[in-house]
């Protein structure tokens, strides 16, 4: 019977896979209508068309999803190659499009071969992706640590484990009780005898006990005291050390996508770090340099990017700033907080010290939500000042000082500490 069942299962799997293959083929066949290759088309689309067209949304030009179903292939070929010539020929559709987009002139692409245009059209004819809600939800597990996903499964696992342990405990307790009863019944007389002996023996008082085991008491006392002091020290020095602080931000901005995947330089957005003491959170107009064209994220869709638009007053439908819009500044939560009595200057460290941002801020390019990586305590600062050499090369400012320092310490390389970087007044005023 088992054997039969297995065969049935195997058969059904085969059936399903055959059906699936057929379906897949039919879909591919549908796409291959114009003879184009959608994979090559995607590349071409991104290289040539994406700056003005989106598949499902108006950008500078119209959305292009299923454009091949709306217009004839020949017309499309003509239009893409040289739309101006098509308009000049008096083509009514071409003129209508031109009118609709207020005379926005589309670049001509005479360099594209017929095959390439077909590839692009094949790409545009692919069905739209899953609805956004699904993408958003499915995005979560794939993001980096996959914390939420494993979180749920371990929880269930833990529950089961707990239940098993509890069950085992109950069994053990019951077993011991039974065993005890059996034991008591078996050795009743001997137990009575033992109890009598115990009562006859004089109990040691605490003082006597202490006197007997003084070295032990002292040893354990000291040990306990030491452990307590160490614990107190660890606890106290950790007050207001917020390593790992990872506040929820008003926009689910991901450094992993921007700095990690897209490799945008840190200083592109945090440009003040080059000039000023603050690294600065980029103003919304900096975001708009890119997000004017990128209205949809790979993972959160339009939900998060729309918040930028709301802040600055950009209408993605009209592709224009809303006139007289009352801007709504974004209230970010500051992650790295230094007390007021500390003066820290980013420019000093980033430009003069040539220190990578990651040295203090950790692997930001892998973080979805930024957290505090370093301790930001004074000991942490000072330690770095002790170990780090000052970047003096090609800077006339240091020429004289370097000579003086080299003479004083008899070294070639000079650490920040030698420069006076341990002085209180350098950072506290």
């Amino acid at each position, binding site marked *: 019977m088992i054997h039969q069942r297995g065969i049935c299962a195997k058969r059904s799997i085969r059936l399903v896979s055959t059906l699936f293959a057929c379906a897949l083929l039919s879909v591919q066949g549908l796409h291959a209508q114009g003879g184009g290759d959608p994979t090559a088309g995607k590349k071409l689309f991104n290289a040539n068309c994406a700056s003005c067209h989106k598949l499902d949304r108006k950008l500078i030009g119209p959305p292009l999803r299923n454009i091949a179903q709306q217009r004839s292939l020949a017309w499309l070929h003509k239009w893409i190659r040289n739309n101006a010539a098509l308009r000049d020929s008096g083509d009514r559709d071409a003129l209508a499009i031109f009118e609709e987009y207020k005379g926005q002139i589309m670049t001509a692409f005479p360099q594209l071969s017929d095959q390439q245009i077909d590839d692009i059209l094949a790409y545009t004819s692919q069905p739209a992706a899953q609805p956004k809600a699904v993408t958003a939800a499915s995005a979560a597990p794939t993001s980096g640590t996959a914390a939420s996903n494993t979180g749920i499964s371990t929880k269930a696992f833990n529950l089961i484990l707990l239940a098993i342990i509890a069950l085992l405990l109950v069994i053990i307790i019951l077993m011991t009780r039974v065993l005890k009863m059996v034991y008591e019944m078996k050795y009743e007389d001997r137990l009575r005898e033992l109890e009598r002996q115990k009562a006859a023996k004089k109990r040691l008082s605490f003082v006597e006990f202490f006197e007997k085991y003084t070295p032990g008491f002292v040893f354990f006392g000291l040990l306990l005291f030491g452990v307590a002091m160490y614990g107190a020290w660890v606890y106290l020095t950790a*007050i*207001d050390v*917020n390593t790992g602080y990872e*506040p929820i931000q008003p926009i689910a901005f991901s450094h992993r996508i921007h700095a990690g995947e897209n490799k945008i330089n840190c200083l592109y957005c945090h440009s*003040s770090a080059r*000039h*000023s*003491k*603050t690294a*600065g*959170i*980029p*103003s*919304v*107009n*900096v975001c708009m340099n890119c997000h004017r064209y990128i209205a949809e994220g790979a993972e959160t869709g339009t939900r998060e990017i729309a918040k930028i638009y709301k*802040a*600055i007053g950009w209408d993605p439908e009209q592709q224009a700033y809303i006139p007289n819009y009352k*801007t*709504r*500044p*974004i*209230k*970010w*939560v*500051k992650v790295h*907080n230094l*007390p*007021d*009595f*500390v*003066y820290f*200057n980013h*420019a*000093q460290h980033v*430009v*003069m010290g040539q220190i990578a941002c990651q040295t203090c801020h950790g692997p930001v390019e892998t973080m979805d939500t930024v957290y505090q990586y370093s301790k930001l305590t004074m000991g942490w600062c000072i330690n770095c000042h002790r170990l780090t050499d000052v970047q003096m090369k*090609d*800077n*006339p*400012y*240091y*020429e*004289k*000082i370097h000579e*003086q*320092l080299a*003479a*004083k310490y008899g070294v070639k390389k000079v650490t920040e500490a030698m*420069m*006076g970087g341990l*002085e*209180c*007044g*350098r950072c*506290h*005023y």
Partner: protein
Amino acid sequence: MDSAKKYWKGFGDLASDTAWEAIRNREFSTETPMGPFLKGDGKAYEARASRRDFLKFVGFSTAAATLAACEGPVVHSIPYVVKPDELTPGIADYYASTVYDGHDFSSVLVKTREGRPIKLQPNASSPHYAYPNTRVQASLLSLYDIDGLKQPLIAGRPASWAQVDERVNQGLEAAAAAGQKIALLTAPVISPSFSLLWGRFKQKYPSAEWVPYNPLSNSGAVEAYQAVYGQIALPGYDFTKADVIVSVGADFLGDWFGGDHSRDYALHRNPDQAMNRHFQLESNLSLTGANADYRIPVKPSEQAQAIAQIYRAIALGQQTRDQRTQAAIQALRTAGPAGLLVCGSNDKDAQLLVDAVNRKLKSRAYQPESPVYLKAVTDAPVKALISDMAAGRVGVLLSHRVNPVYSSPDSRAFVEALKNVKTFVSFDRKRDETASLAHVNAISRHPMESWGDAKPKIGFYTLQQPTIRPLFQSRQMEDSLIAWMGGALEGVDAALANDSMATYIPPVTENRPTFHDLLKQNWTENILQEGTSWVSALRAGYYERRDERHPISPADLDFSPALTRVESRYAPSGKMELQLYSKVGMGAGAQADNPWLQEFPDPLTRATWDNYLTISRKQAAELGLKNWPDSKGALNGDRVNLSAKGRTLKNVPVLITAGQAYGSVGLAFGYGREKAGKTAFIDGKPIGVNAFQLYVGRDPIQTDVQIEKVDGSHGFALVQLYRTMMGRGESIVKETTAQVYDRGKSDKSRYNPPEKLPTIDGKQPVSQVDMWAARDRSIGPWFNLSIDLNACTGCGACVIACHAENNVPVVGKDEVRRFRDMHWLRIDRYYATDMSYERAESEGRSEGRAFFRALERPAENPEVVFQPVMCQHCNHAPCETVCPVAATSHGRQGQNQMIYNRCVGTRYCANNCPYKVRRFNWFQYAENDAFDFHMNNDLGRMVLNPDVVVRSRGVMEKCSLCIQMTQASILKAKREKRPLRDVDLTTACATACATGALVFGDIDDEHSRVHQLHDEEKNKRKYYLLEELDTKPNVFYNLKVRNKIET
């Protein structure tokens, strides 16, 4: 004698009062509150509070401390939506602009951070009015004044600008229809573009009349100039061209004719080059008098007589007999064209005589051909206005930056006359005495928010541009006028571009012309000459037209009637006379609610938060008036009723001052405000008394006043009680005469002998005695600050600059009375005493206390020395060695660093500091309702410098030599890949100093100015404060040289 040596804390210490005896024998001035723990007999074991109560207290405080420590606030960071191009968060931008509030004028550099002005600095490139005084610098606080109006009002209720326009237009049309006048009452306006605008306004409303009003009248001098030169103006002066200056009551280092003479005066007072000789005849001891070489105290009426004497001697060549003016007359005669006579009188005839004397001398410093328009206002128009108002001939009154209800001696007449005016519009942001009576408060803008221009003197123009977005629903006065003219200016294009250098100021999007457009058009078409663009003028903040000269043809006047009038009007009498004056820190009182200015110690009396009757010691003794210390050491004084011409000021406190001419008393304007911001009041009562009530006839001299002692006493808040140097002159203040100094050619030991200490090898110079290793100066810069006592006039601009730069808190009068003022930089004032051991011996007062009491007493007419004292940054600092937690330590650049977060507040350092420059935060001065000044509200805190921490309670603080500025300069040099230059290095006080008395820099840089000054071979005047203590300070002084001939 050595065994009898004693030291005094203050003069009160010398008095044999029982109160003093009591406090001397007590460690703390008040008992520690132990009530809950002790019973009546003070026995702890019978305490009311039980052991359990004690545990409760301890437990609660521990829990509270733990909870407080656990707080983890969420800090938000809000970036710009659209960041202005030139603005980088964290970096200061500077814009050239002008501050003119109707009283004080200065070209300034506005330091802004993230779009808000945080400090006003000198626009040092400007040839005139480049250095803002205390009041101009402090006027920044009024921008962030929480007590100001935030939107326009109609009949005291909030209204929209449309409603305001409707209401005012109704009033204007009604007045025009009824043939009534439309009067604009303003502080003296010197804006050429406003004059143009006013011309346009007059076209629309021909009955409009512009009435300038100056609370401190210059009318006499203006009328005199008008009589001789036919123009409403004041004569120009160039103090660099005067070798002999004779000033009769003219406080030209203070408020006289709008000021701006300090720098020129000090430039020509260099003891190594040319040095002017300065005679001052005056009644009150003024800042100028304190700097004079010869000061002759005279009664106010005798000032006019002195002018007449000088006129007779110089212009008429007569022999005069008055001993007091002989030396001055002789000096003027000898100097000839290098002489200058100036006069503070508000009497036209006296000023006519001064003009005649200067012309007779052919004085090069006297320049009537380059007239000054600042403050050139006569009193006639405002008198006419009040009578017009009383007669119902004025339909609309517009007032701007004036407060006649407060500052006019006839305020009641003004208020009465105002009742006949149907529409009274005030442009002022404060609901002061006058503005609170207005029907419409069409609030104008602060100078930091407005466009404007000025022409303070011929050929010199300045521009004012906004450096902050308007904080409230305000509209600048000129734009309101344009709106009421119908919103159109013919021939003026509405500029759509924003012209401000600060691009964060939003562009004017209204499609109608604004005052800015008129201003720009006027400048490009009429003021700027070829080669200068509007943008470059805006960048510089000023523009000079050398082609403008006033052609003068003096009228041929007969001066003898003027002479007769002066001599008869001010005939000598034995009556008590009153000289009204304006204080360095308060002026005419428009900023009486400015906490920086209230807490600014008067340079001469060292009093804060007050005005008072100044009186000489002799006079006070005759009238039975006293000053005495209270149990905490603060000064109290008697009170009097002061009457003149039938008016009485009640309960005027009396402060006995040195240098006050016998037979005269002095009283400062600017106090006793009835309606102003909360800082002008203490416990609901106005601070001080209103001297304008005795300004009868707008004459600062009242020749017949009665003083009547009344019951009660008044508490003063003085920051310095000791007055002379108690015979310790050689190590605190050194001075000599030009004759001895001989331009540095004479032997140094004659005037600046090196300080010597007795050692086992005999007396050795301090520099060679040292039990400590010298500081290692081999690396990097070593900062020093040089202070020239000869150039310091004591004006106090550095004190306010220090406040603004370093977030120095204001503590209030009560705390100042407890000597808890927080000034990082103080300017000590010392009076010379004419007592010497020899004299005391001959008078039989040379023994013990009697001798010291005699020493403490300043001379009736003392010489005065101003000495700025801040942390001396000792290389062997006494404070550093006693700090138990190493919160104060020495840096490699020479500074003595104070680390607030490390300080636990033992105050050992302050005790051990011989210079007493450390300040302790007894309380939390920010965000504390008990100190309700600018640091207690969000708006006021916008003035704080973000680069300097606001210190919290329980920590010591002091001057840091502006380490935040030097560190920023060093970083700038590093970024620009160049060595540090002398010009990079400065401090707030050195930047603000008009006379160049303070020079900061690196002494190891051979090209620096401070290096030259530090070199004892080159600068023979250099000495250290209390050098015998061998603290080796990094602040050094250059001794004062008086241009006196020793007799």
